[in-house]
């Protein structure tokens, strides 16, 4: 299970590309975990690119954001919905339980 660690601040699509650069090109049977414990802020573009790379381009089975700030989790939910992959995004812990 590939695990990535998000840094404190992320704003560009390029940063999402850099974060995911080491992942295999085909993630069809894989769950990608992004540890967001250190993350404090992200832009819609960064989050959208992360969702796009993992779930759309590389077809990961699921993308799990762990300990993401509320705003980042909400942006990820929106991005996954826009790209019609919301069923493969998991927010841990879920926004509703916070």
């Amino acid at each position, binding site marked *: 299970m590939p695990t990535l660690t998000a840094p404190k601040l992320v*704003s560009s*699509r*390029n940063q999402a590309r850099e974060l995911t650069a080491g992942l295999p090109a085909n993630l069809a049977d894989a769950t990608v975990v992004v540890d967001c414990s250190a993350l404090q*802020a992200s*832009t*819609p*573009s960064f989050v959208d690119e992360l969702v796009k790379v993992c779930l759309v381009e590389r077809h990961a089975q699921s993308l799990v954001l762990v300990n993401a700030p509320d*705003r980042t989790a909400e942006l990820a939910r929106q991005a996954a919905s*826009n790209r019609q992959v919301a069923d493969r995004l998991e927010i841990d812990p879920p926004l509703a339980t916070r």
Partner: protein
Amino acid sequence: MSIRSCSFLGLSSFDDALVPDDDVVTIDLSGLEFIDAFGLVGLAAHALEATLEDREIRLRMPRDGNAAKYLARMHVGDLLDGCGVELDRSLPTIRERDRRDRLIELQSFLDSRGGEQLANYLWGRLEGEVDPQLVTQIYEAAGELGNNVIEHAKSPAGGYMAAQCYRRGKPDEHLVVAVGDVGIGIQASLTRRYGPMSEADAIEKALKPFVSGTDDPGRGQGLPGIVEGVTGFGGVVHVRSGAAARRLTRTSASTHEVSHLRGTIVGAKVPCRPGR
């Protein structure tokens, strides 16, 4: 276009300062007393446009010594050197103190690192000082402004940015941040996908969610998010592209014709202590 002499060059006045030129592009700062981050980025865009068109540029320095020192402090000299601007007298030499807690000097950026740098600066400046939600909104806005330049503007000279906090520690403390480019402008960026439209219509369209010059369905969140975030905290967003500009607050939005300038400039004025 030339810039006529005026005492204030900034978010609310830059558009009015642009006037048709004769043979030579003149930047008349002789009456300048105050210039904000938007004015600096506008100055950069104007000088770059003239340089790209191989026009001669003459600049009249401010008579006000403090205004001249401020231009030097904000590194306008680097811009003028790069554009080959002819000055009526030199910028003053100043001893530069570290003011990273209050400003980010006028500077160019050529890749996404520039937007990251601007966003990170603003986060560092405001974290712990203002409402955490406001810090997040400003961070997102700055990051998206930088992203837009790199991804959509097709600017031959990259982008320019500047920011400064004003009235620090006072109830009306506020931040002005601006990012600009000399690229194709919003109209050209959107026309390929949506067909012909006026520059005013293009700005209004670009401020709606999921409108983008690309076919990627996740794009088009940057500018609408900036407007929602900044105006939600009582701030002002000013977008000018080509010969149109749109100004937005929490309660109003208006689009108007302005003198043509190549590319796009987006500026925001945000209260650091909203509600106080």
